[in-house]
């Protein structure tokens, strides 16, 4: 095999392809992440509709595929086939380019998300700054979309959402800075902005930053968790697309594929900000209790989790197969769901085999593969919790009014995050 493929695989130290300079593997990672995120967005779409439906005592999509599993695909096809409408008075070029800006910003962020110590496209020295900066570019897409539609509601929606995102970025940034301050509590006293470095700092200090300097870390995390909902324009801060006030906000005039690009960008941004929260406060790729339960046996037990999760999903699907009414109408659905269950079971089996084959802690390929899967699994697991919370919030809470939102951002979150930042610095100096 060519050198440029193998040299990265053969290198012994865990390093990201970007840092190793392997452009081939960087591209491979980019493709994997792109597909992964697209699939995650589709799954999230299905999950949101299903979970929201069950919150609201209804069933949600049930027709397209068993339990509506194929609904996102059907939706995607529908949206792609829809007529592409550009309003007559709209600025054609800008209207066309606006969704792409949002999408690009949302996806570019993924280059520095640390799924594992070497499971990221690149480990930038300025990782967190890059993430926050690029994700703040997404607002340009929204503003420009609202303007290009040449209509009142989209413009108001765009101005609202950009004002909202800009003001919450301040509190968000301060919360992030207090987490970065915590990374500097090491021997040399220099912190890091690298995403991987931040997670490794938590590893070295033996504590997730959410529990560091209790309750300072928790408060900073809370501020970030609130600000990230506002950043992604989700309920209860979904002023930009407040249906009852602005019909659909900045994307009122959009339809079809372009609209779906906005949705894709929104969900991708949700996953991205959740990843920041996970990496900064929840220990990133680390499994629970890495220093309390650190025997190799525990390593092995926790490495079974990915397989168990998929076994659980397969079991749920199997229950679905069994409970499906015994009517010939449901025959195809039953076969489909059974096949899906089998697929999940197969994945679980593969994961189980990998977990068992790679249980030794040496640097064999299987062991490295097992480790990689563990890292990605725990990271995705933590992000998935946030995704569920996003849905939960939406089902439970009414919407804030715009001025109240601004008031919270500037008069509550900003002072608290400043105080937390200062307190963190003081406590950090006193401790070290």
């Amino acid at each position, binding site marked *: 095999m060519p050198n440029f493929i193998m040299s990265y695989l053969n290198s012994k130290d865990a390093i990201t392809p970007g840092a190793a300079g392997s452009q081939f593997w960087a591209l491979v990672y980019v493709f994997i992440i792109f597909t992964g995120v697209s699939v995650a967005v589709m799954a999230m779409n299905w999950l949101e509709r299903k979970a929201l439906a069950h919150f609201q005592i209804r069933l949600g999509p049930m027709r397209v595929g068993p339990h509506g599993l194929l609904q996102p695909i059907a939706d995607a096809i529908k949206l792609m086939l829809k007529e592409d409408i550009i309003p007559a008075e709209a600025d054609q*070029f800008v209207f066309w380019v606006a969704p792409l800006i949002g999408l690009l910003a949302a996806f570019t962020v993924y280059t520095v998300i640390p799924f594992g110590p070497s499971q990221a496209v690149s480990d930038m020295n300025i990782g967190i700054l890059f993430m926050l900066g690029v994700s703040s570019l997404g607002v340009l897409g929204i503003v420009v979309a609202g303007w290009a539609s040449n209509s009142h509601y989209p413009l108001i929606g765009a101005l609202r959402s950009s004002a909202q995102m800009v003001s919450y970025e301040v509190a968000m940034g301060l919360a992030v800075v207090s987490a970065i301050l915590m990374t500097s509590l090491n021997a040399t006293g220099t912190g890091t902005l690298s995403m991987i470095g931040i997670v490794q700092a938590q590893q070295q200090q033996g504590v997730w930053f959410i529990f560091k300097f209790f309750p300072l870390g928790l408060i900073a995390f809370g501020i970030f968790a609130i600000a990230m909902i506002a950043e992604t324009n989700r309920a209860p801060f979904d002023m930009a697309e407040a249906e009852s006030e602005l019909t659909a906000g900045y994307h009122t005039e959009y339809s079809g594929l372009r609209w779906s690009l906005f949705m894709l960008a929104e969900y991708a941004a949700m996953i991205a900000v959740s990843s920041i929260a996970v990496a900064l406060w929840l220990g990133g790729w680390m499994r629970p209790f890495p220093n309390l339960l650190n025997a190799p046996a525990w390593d092995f037990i926790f490495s079974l989790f990915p397989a168990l999760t998929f076994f659980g999903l397969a079991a749920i699907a199997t229950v679905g197969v069994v409970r499906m009414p015994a009517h010939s109408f449901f025959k195809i659905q039953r076969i489909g769901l059974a096949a899906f269950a089998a697929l999940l079971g197969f994945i679980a089996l593969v994961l189980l085999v990998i977990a068992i084959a790679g249980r030794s802690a040496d640097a064999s390929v299987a062991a490295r593969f097992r480790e990689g899967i563990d890292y990605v699994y725990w990271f995705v697991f933590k992000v998935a919790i946030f995704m569920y919370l996003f849905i939960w919030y939406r089902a439970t809470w009414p919407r804030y009014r715009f001025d109240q939102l601004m008031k919270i951002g500037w008069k509550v979150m900003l002072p608290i995050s400043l105080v937390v930042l200062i307190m963190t610095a003081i406590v950090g100096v006193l401790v070290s």
Partner: protein
Amino acid sequence: MNPALNSGLNSAVNAGMAPVATPWFFYVLAGLAVASGLLVITRRNAVHSALALIVTLLAVTGLYLMLYAPFVAAVQIFVYAGGIMLLFLFVIMLVNIERSSKDRQFNRMWPVGLAAACALLALFVTAFVKGKALFPDRMISLPESSNTQQIAGMLYGEAGRMGEYTFAFEIASLLLLVAILGAVIMTKKKKI
């Protein structure tokens, strides 16, 4: 990608720096920057100009990364592309651009302005042609991984010592404060 280049990249890794500086990237980014810079000053519609300017800024960000200045690049994205351009777009939406885009776009003195700019260009060209020999033809690789820490050291000082630029940095923050206050006061609606 040829193996020779790749081995060069690998040696770059060993030297402890990332191999971002390939000529290809430079030409693409530089071309993008200049082309969209041209669009900025020629577009009729201010929003188009702003979008072109964003492209220029991002291309220049890429050039910064090639120059081993990741922190400046991050600041460029954060402050310029994210902040200042958003401000520009806000203002463009507030002022009535439809009328101004139908107006005459260039002022009456445009030939003079163009001539002056051409003179400036000529000056640059002369300076570059005559003085090319004066530029040392070297590119020193800066340590990228500690770039942020070093800049922080210069701005804030380190190990109990004031940084070289700490005072200037504080003055700059004062300048920003004054600018914010000025902007707020100027744009505040007057009580009627």
